[in-house]
């Protein structure tokens, strides 16, 4: 009798204690899961791995502060192998099987767009990492994209390049546009074409080249034959290198050269091209100039650079990793502000708030892009041969545009 009583008392007590513990820090036991896919192999893996390092730094920082809503943050992620076809399946799995609490996007336009239909069906907020006009067709109102391309991504992308050109004396009259036959570069070229027409420039060369191009000298020579004042290039990393070398070898005489060359933002390529870069005006999103010294960015980069050692990713991580950290900061600040995971409330908060992140103040516009473009046009200056360290600090990539972040004046005409 007594024994039964004791046991039942103990049992009741146990249940009570357990449920108290559960109610008190309900979530302490249950981590908060953030799901995403990332390119860890395949063409975009270099950037994808660097982004993941940035994201993991955010996760560790948040967990050190006690997590989100008192819950420890955990990542659930899969390698999408840079294959758009893998993405819908992975996001379905994240939602249906892993039952993640929050979602963020993979890196890159081609891997963001395929996730959108799945994400939209579940009405999840979707902070996104470097999609160029990926939401243009979907018009999803819970999409928030961290790359500062601006409200009209296609033209904002090269706007700075053309405004700089238009401000020079004598004003350039002719332009050559050359781009890779692939999604991003074609979009960049389309935007450049519009901007060129708006600026009253005569387009004297407008051609695309196939992605497996080995030698760019015939292309640069054909451009040179049309004698353009400025040359706008939309290219991917290996082509950017080929194009810069060919321009040097042929002795391209344009007064301004660059624009949308992907790859010139990466340390290894910068080191290799060295002085050939001098004078090139090209887009960027963050460079270590004093005008862009946002709170927290240096601390973040120091951590990134430590983590990146020996992982075969960009050693400085100026281009993408701060944004990979920032898009999670947006999520963090919204969750903390609305104190729930209610997707509608989070979306409403993201729409109206100006966020303080390591990449500066971020405010989203109606289509989920930055309300104001901050595509930088930077000019390479005084670059020395075979020296990686020079790119760690200011002075080598001077910000010319937009003027709020300007750190120096353009050298025009561009000299080889």
């Amino acid at each position, binding site marked *: 009798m007594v024994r039964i009583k004791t046991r039942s008392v103990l049992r009741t007590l146990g249940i009570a204690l357990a449920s108290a513990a559960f109610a008190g820090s309900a979530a302490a036991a249950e981590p908060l899961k953030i799901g995403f896919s990332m390119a860890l*192999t*395949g*063409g975009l*893996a*270099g950037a994808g*791995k660097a982004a993941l390092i940035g994201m993991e730094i955010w996760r560790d920082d948040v967990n050190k502060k006690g997590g989100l809503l008192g819950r420890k943050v955990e990542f659930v992620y899969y390698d999408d192998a840079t294959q758009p076809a893998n993405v819908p399946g992975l996001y379905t799995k994240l939602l249906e099987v892993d039952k993640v609490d929050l979602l963020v996007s993979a890196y890159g336009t081609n891997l963001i767009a395929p996730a959108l239909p799945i994400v939209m069906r579940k009405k999840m907020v979707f902070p996104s990492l470097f999609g160029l006009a990926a939401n243009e067709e979907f018009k999803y109102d819970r999409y928030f994209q961290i790359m500062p391309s601006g409200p009209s991504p296609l033209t904002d992308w090269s706007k700075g390049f053309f405004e700089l050109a238009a401000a020079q004396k004598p004003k350039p009259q002719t332009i050559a546009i050359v781009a890779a*036959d692939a999604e991003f570069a074609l979009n960049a070229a389309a935007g450049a074409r519009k901007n060129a027409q708006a600026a009253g420039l005569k387009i004297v060369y407008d*051609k*695309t*080249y*196939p*992605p*497996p*191009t*080995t*030698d760019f*000298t*015939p*292309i640069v*020579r*054909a451009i040179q*034959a049309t004698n353009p004042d400025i040359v706008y290039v939309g290219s991917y*990393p*290996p082509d950017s*290198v*080929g194009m810069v*070398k*060919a321009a*040097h*070898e*042929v002795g391209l005489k344009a007064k301004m050269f660059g624009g949308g060359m992907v*790859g010139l933002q*990466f340390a*290894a*390529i910068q080191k*290799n091209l060295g002085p*050939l870069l001098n004078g090139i005006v090209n887009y960027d999103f963050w460079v270590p100039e004093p005008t862009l010294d946002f709170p927290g960015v240096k601390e973040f980069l120091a951590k990134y650079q430590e983590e990146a050692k020996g*992982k*075969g*990713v*960009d050693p400085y991580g100026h281009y993408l990793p701060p944004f990979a950290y920032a898009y999670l900061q947006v999520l963090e600040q919204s969750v903390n502000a609305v104190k729930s995971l209610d997707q509608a409330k989070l979306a409403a908060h993201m729409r109206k708030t100006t966020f303080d992140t390591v990449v500066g103040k971020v405010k989203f516009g109606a289509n989920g892009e930055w309300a104001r473009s901050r595509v930088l046009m930077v000019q390479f200056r005084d670059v020395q041969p*075979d020296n990686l360290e020079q790119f760690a600090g200011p002075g080598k990539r001077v910000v010319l545009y937009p003027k709020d972040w300007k750190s120096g004046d353009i050298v025009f005409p561009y000299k080889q």
Partner: protein
Amino acid sequence: MISADLFSNAVVSGLLLGGFYAAVAIGLAIVFGQLDIVNIAHPAFIIVGAYIAYILNSRFGFDPVFVGLLAAPAFFVVGAVIYRVYFLAFERTGQESLSGLAFFFGVMFIIEVVLILIYGVDYRLVQADYIGQSWRIGFVDFPLRMLVPFAVAAALTAAIYVFMSRTFMGRAIQAVAQDRLALQLMGADPVRIKQWAFGLGIATAAIAGSLLIVIGPVEPSVGRLYIGRAFAIVVLGGMGSIKGMFIAALILGIVESMVSTFAGPSWSPAVAFGVLAITLALRPAGLFGRR
């Protein structure tokens, strides 16, 4: 529109580019052209060659092309071992056509993944004094970044050509390509000869890789871009003909460069492969093929 200046520069650029294509294709001209082994992994070996050039160049400052020559004997041994495996697993049992192709696909992926795991997926480049320099004769430019690969490729082709036509082993390789049974009846071991030839083919990949990284940046999967071109050159030149391969490579290079200069670069692969299709329609065995 067509000025003498543009025209001659386009021809020279095409010749230089074609020379490099020859370096990429010469290993296949031996392995695929002579031995009928569809080594789809050949460009992957070229990438390994490029990485070795990158490693020794960035660590010790060695000249990339010198590294390519240095690495060639090691590649020869690796090639011989791979052929041995291929022979034991597929050729001996007569399963070389489909299973063999799958085998080389597998080899290609393994090479790519291993390179990614060890070195990551960043683009790799090399430094050498001649990269970025350019010679000028009249109004024609010779960028050394393209001229050095051309010269090395031409020398490599000449060496292999002489080896194939003058030495006992070279002739034996050609014999095994023509009639394996007859060779066997004469007391020679066809497997050993094919092993030699395969090793030689892979050895050229070390050199081609070093040339590739002189021209531009390399990442583990960039080799795939050359699979189509390399096989096309071997077929266009005529299966088994080293001379034909070299001429075909130059033709492809010149066509690409001319189209790039005068019509627009996005047309160049279509026109280059169009030339291939027309040539094969007129001469099914290729330019200098064995019939």
